[in-house]
């Protein structure tokens, strides 16, 4: 194999793929990135067995071929080579090393045979559709915070993506919950997604897709089947296993009849929660919300350090109510509100509270109270 690439391009692509590679591995080849030169393209591929990222970039191929080298070390080398240099990658006859040359620098890297490199064998994808990158980004941004990290309910360790809504107004819905709060967002169901199976996209995959989008892509095409999902963004293809589990019937936890409506200015509310929670301890982060007509009093009492109260003007016309929430959760949810005004629908101090944008943007959040 002999191929020449531009350093900046190689660095960018490697930056995408090497992130997938775990730093410590029990299987040596999982620490490597697969390099394949073919025609006028160089493709790079890395995997952690659950997730696989492939990226192609323009290159001048002298001799086609492929090999694998340690991903992090290769990335570090390319990173340290001078900007603007042309990098030549050359694998010798028996291909046990890869030579990396740029300017006057020469490296040889131990390789492992590409035949050992695992393939995530995607199989047949049953559904495929495409979405504007900004939509996918929004879907992820609005739900990611609620993904559970707890392995004992592994089916909560991702975003549940499925079709919902009515036949007339069908939506592509993303839901995430950690048992304390839940986030749900609806997008118009794209063509091709009709009848798709409900799938749980793992947290790590969600994070990688989000990062790739931040690098700016217009349109993302998604293919999926029962067990796998694939995102294609320009010259990057990310294929991931899905979480093999059943997402709980989340509809049951979304309150339908909460009649006490609290309307707050998002910024005021967020700032007030943030201020009073300064006093809270690591262990108990409860903020008490005391509601009465037109008035909300937030308070925190920490037996170890003191107390704080703050009063803000709100729209509230129902019976007085005292309810407690984890301040961290309140802040997380407030951060999701895209407009200026948030609406909280409450029932009683022991029941879930619904939070939404005043002009419903297709997203809703549910939060369980704390007993204070």
């Amino acid at each position, binding site marked *: 194999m002999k191929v020449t690439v531009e350093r900046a391009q190689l660095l960018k692509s490697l930056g995408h793929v090497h992130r997938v590679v775990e730093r410590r591995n*029990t299987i040596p080849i999982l620490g490597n990135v697969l390099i394949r030169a073919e025609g006028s393209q160089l493709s790079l591929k890395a995997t952690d067995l659950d997730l696989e990222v492939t990226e192609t970039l323009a290159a001048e191929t002298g001799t086609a071929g492929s090999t694998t080298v340690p991903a992090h070390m290769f990335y570090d080398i390319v990173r340290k080579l001078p900007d603007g240099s042309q990098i030549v990658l050359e694998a010798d006859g028996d291909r046990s090393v890869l030579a990396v040359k740029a300017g006057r620098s020469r490296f040889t890297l131990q390789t492992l045979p590409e035949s050992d490199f695992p393939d995530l064998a995607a199989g047949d994808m049953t559904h495929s559709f495409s979405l504007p990158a900004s939509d996918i980004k929004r879907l992820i941004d609005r739900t990611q915070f609620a993904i559970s990290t707890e392995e004992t309910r592994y089916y909560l360790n991702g975003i549940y993506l499925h079709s919902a809504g009515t036949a007339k107004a069908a939506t592509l819905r993303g839901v995430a919950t950690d048992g304390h709060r839940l986030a749900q967002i609806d997008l118009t169901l794209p063509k091709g997604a009709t009848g798709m199976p409900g799938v749980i996209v793992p947290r790590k995959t969600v994070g990688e897709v989000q990062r790739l989008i931040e690098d700016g892509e217009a349109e993302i095409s998604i293919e999926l089947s029962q067990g796998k999902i694939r995102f294609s963004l320009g010259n990057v293809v990310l294929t991931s296993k899905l979480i093999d589990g059943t997402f709980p019937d989340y509809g049951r936890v979304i309150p339908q009849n909460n009649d006490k409506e609290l309307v707050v200015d998002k910024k005021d509310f967020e700032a007030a929660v943030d201020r009073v929670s300064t006093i809270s301890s690591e262990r108990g982060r409860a903020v008490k919300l005391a509601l009465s007509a037109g008035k909300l009093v937030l308070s925190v009492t920490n037996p170890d350090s003191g107390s704080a109260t703050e009063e803000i003007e709100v729209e509230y016309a129902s019976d007085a109510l005292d309810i407690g929430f984890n301040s961290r959760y309140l802040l997380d949810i407030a951060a999701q509100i895209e407009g200026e005004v948030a609406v909280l629908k409450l029932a009683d101090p022991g029941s879930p509270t619904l939070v939404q944008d005043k002009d419903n943007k297709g997203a809703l959040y549910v939060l*369980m109270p704390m007993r204070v």
Partner: protein
Amino acid sequence: MPVRQLPEQVVNRIAAGEVVERPASVVKELVENAIDAGASRIDVFTDGGGRRRIGITDDGSGMTHADLSLAVDRHATSKLDDEDLLRIKTLGFRGEALPSIGAVAKLGITTRHAGEPHAWSLSVEGGEKSEVMPAALGQGTRVEVNDLFYATPARLKFLKTDRTEAEAIREVVRRLAMARPDVAFTLAGEERAPVTWAAALPGAAGRLTRLGDILGADFRASAIEVRAEREGVTVEGFAAAPSLTRANALGQYLFVNGRPVRDKLILGAVRAAYSDYLPRDRHPVVALFVSCPPQEVDANVHPAKTEVRFRNAGLVRALIVHALKEGLAREGKRTAANTADGAALSAFRPAFTPSPRPGNWGWRSSPTYPVNPMRGFEGAAATAFAEPGQAAFDVGTPTADVRFEAAPAPDLLDRPLGAARTQIHETYIVAQTRDGLIVVDQHAAHERIVYEKLKASLAKNGVQRQILLIPEIVELDEATVEKLLDRSMELASFGLAIDSFGPGAVAVRETPSLLGKANSAGLLRDLAEHMAEWDEALPLERRLMHVAATMACHGSVRAGRRLKPEEMNALLREMEDTPNSGQCNHGRPTYVELKLSDIEKLFGRR
């Protein structure tokens, strides 16, 4: 006072001071005599810590009338030809045990020799020998010692409590019994519940049986057979796996040609061999048997005969280290210590008795149910709660853990560490074998693998040395300097280059770069001390290994990292291929094995 020849009685009493130090020494001498007489069964009985009474009965050759009357005389022995002090094959050879005992206690001997029509008996009291009288006894010899030290009250004062003396007696008998598994022993008396060690089969199996009887079932379960032989010297025996340790070195037994001895040699050698497996303050349990031609070893160092001198101590030491290291490496992967023993098993047993629950226990009526029960399905959401204070949705019950691998591949089940089925607490891999299950500590196991790789690469590529800009001059005493310079080749192989620098100093020119900015003076002093004591450059190697161990620790998958099934299986396979993978480099086990039979025992199915 004019010079005069001391009377025999006084001479014997002086000798007794050396041979008979305490009751346990009497027991030792008498049991050794019984062993020398070819006994196949020896019964030991003591009262009052051995002070009041010691009785030893054997079924050995016995003595003739003539022998008996001579036996209690000073320097009378049947065990030494005139010139033979260089080839001692018996435990006794000085011919002073019986007269010494006779000088300080009331001694009675009854013995029956095959060539005599009946038994004979004789007594000695205060050094005075009685007539030999006809007596009744089937076969062998019975020796009784009463009122030990009655003739030397000063010595009596130095004795410890009866219990301590009885304990010392037990230790003496244990050691002799370990040396001779082919002889049956009983130990009885008012101070203890009687114990019997049946005669065991000859060979290693019998030896292990006896060691198990004496050192405990834990030792037997984890014992590794070791053996090394060179130039006519054999070292064999059993060593406990590194998971069975003691806080002191008292569990290390050395026998030379069937004689229990105490020797610093074994301590240093054992420490060296286990250095990779054990923390400094833990000591392994070993029983090692050295056999060599009698002229290679001198047992006549002290009247008590518990010390020996080897003609070639270096060889014996090297053999011990080699035998242990080889055994540990061989068994390192699958030591019995990793299988659940009785104690570990019982720890699995639930410590509570389930209380009968009143009927109709229900979550919603339990005290942990939220104070404000949620309204039904149509109303507000159905909920439960997860932690104090914070309410939670009902989104499924947390499982103890998670995803199990589908039916394991049959070929993996046949591997020693089996097929990975799941990971729990993101730290432990649970694997299934044909006849049990294995739990692996993923960090400890991976750490061992990385460490062994680093070690191998150190061995292959050598230690990189940092050349010092200005050689460091370390002042030491002359003897130490000489010792260090003698070994400079060996030190150089570990990356430490030293030169002589006048009589009382050495110049350090290169240091192992792994050690970073080494404190050369401290290192050299440490080395010198260690070489004086144990005759090897261990601290240097150990320091290097310590650095390697730290590097290994950082390069291994941590507890808390979710492993995929393929990764778990890869780790198991690698463990199978890595020497010593049964312990991490801190001596902790990397995995435990529960046999199906153990599990069945847990549930009382067996």
